[in-house]
């Protein structure tokens, strides 16, 4: 590893003040390998591990708030999450492997916006609000393409707020080696409103499948999606699966998510 400096921030204010041209370090499971490959070479890391303000999970009866440094394993095991949005605890339990879940954080995952990550789909389907040190950003405005978000330089996610849904479920067809989503579909229903978000497939990252949303709004059942297809144009194709295969999987995973919701 090349030389860089490390600062253990003590508060959100301290972290934002000291980051400069450096990077925030959350779980480190994306940033550190990226640095080892020299795809990023920050000279300074601001470690968020000891910032108490960034830890904790709470619920006020209508909105579940997960602070940014909550580990995937903590979200998976949280009774608060399991009561408020049980499908979100299940999603966290399906991320990566135990080593990843013990270190990886929700804030890091959302900030990175990897096109095959799981949390962005949940944020988009549930209409989450991304809270930063300076403002609140709706998930619809936050995710802006591959590894691209609305975050400004030096802006820090402090929490994600998930409004409760009547039903929420996430179904993932995972790459058996990496356990990233080859295709993952999150479905949320609130009254007559349905939101469907797709990860792993879009060549521009996570996106909403509005055709499926309108079908499900009038009939929230897997059969409502019978015959509905999504064009392969605009989807990723790689050695793990063609764009056509992913298009097919989106339909299958959406039905599974609805059936499980």
């Amino acid at each position, binding site marked *: 590893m090349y*030389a860089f400096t*490390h600062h253990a921030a003590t508060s959100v204010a301290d972290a934002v003040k000291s980051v400069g041209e450096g990077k925030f370090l959350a779980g480190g499971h994306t940033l*550190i390998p990226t640095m080892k490959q020299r795809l990023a070479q920050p000279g300074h890391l601001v470690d968020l591990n000891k910032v108490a303000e960034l830890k904790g999970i709470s619920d006020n009866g209508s909105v579940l708030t997960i602070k940014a440094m909550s580990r995937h394993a903590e979200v998976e095991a949280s009774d608060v999450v399991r009561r408020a949005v049980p499908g979100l605890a299940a999603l966290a339990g399906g991320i990566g*492997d*135990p080593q990843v879940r013990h270190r990886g954080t929700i804030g890091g995952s959302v900030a990175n916006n990897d096109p095959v990550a799981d949390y962005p789909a949940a944020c988009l389907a549930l209409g989450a609000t991304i809270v930063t040190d300076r403002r609140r950003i709706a998930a619809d405005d936050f995710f802006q393409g591959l590894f691209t978000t609305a975050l400004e330089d030096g802006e820090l996610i402090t929490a994600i707020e998930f409004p409760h849904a009547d039903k929420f479920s996430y179904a993932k067809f995972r790459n058996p080696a990496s356990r990233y989503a080859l295709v993952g579909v999150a479905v949320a229903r609130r009254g007559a409103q349905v939101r469907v978000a797709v990860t792993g497939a879009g060549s521009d990252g996570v996106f909403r499948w509005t055709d499926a949303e309108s079908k499900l709004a009038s009939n929230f059942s897997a059969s409502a999606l019978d015959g509905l297809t999504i064009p392969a144009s605009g989807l990723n194709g790689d050695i793990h699966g063609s764009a056509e295969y992913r298009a097919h999987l989106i339909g299958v995973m959406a039905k599974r998510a609805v059936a499980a919701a």
Partner: protein
Amino acid sequence: MHEPSAQYKKRLLRIKVNGRWREDAVADGCMLVDYLRDTAGLTGVKTGCDGGECGACTVLLDGLPVLACVTLAVRCEGRSVETIEGLAAQGRPSRLQQAFHEKLGAQCGYCTPGMVMASEALLRRNPTPTDDEIRAALAGNLCRCTGYVKIIESVKAVAGLAP
């Protein structure tokens, strides 16, 4: 692009390794795996992919399995790390290590320390895991000899036994 700083800054790291506190001067950019192998001399910790993919470097941090190759050593200040060397007592392997030996859970042996530490974390939390629970706990550990069946049999052999 930001130029890396010209010199490695070192600081004093206070860390508990296999039950004993130590203090060492460690560069900010030093990974836990390199600290454990090069400074602490614990070469049972293996560098495999060096990128958080293979699990060969799995150690226990405050009892939880983590990847030492993508964990900065300075992040472990004041915390407890356990490696494969910490499992043996008075030079005798633990029940779990003995089981890996007897059930042929090790082939080339390179992934074995990571497999054993991930299994150890599982068994402390859940002393009687099912096959599926063992598979889930070892999902982050790759064996390129593909000896997975024997590895699972090794963990099964100590399931339900006192440590």
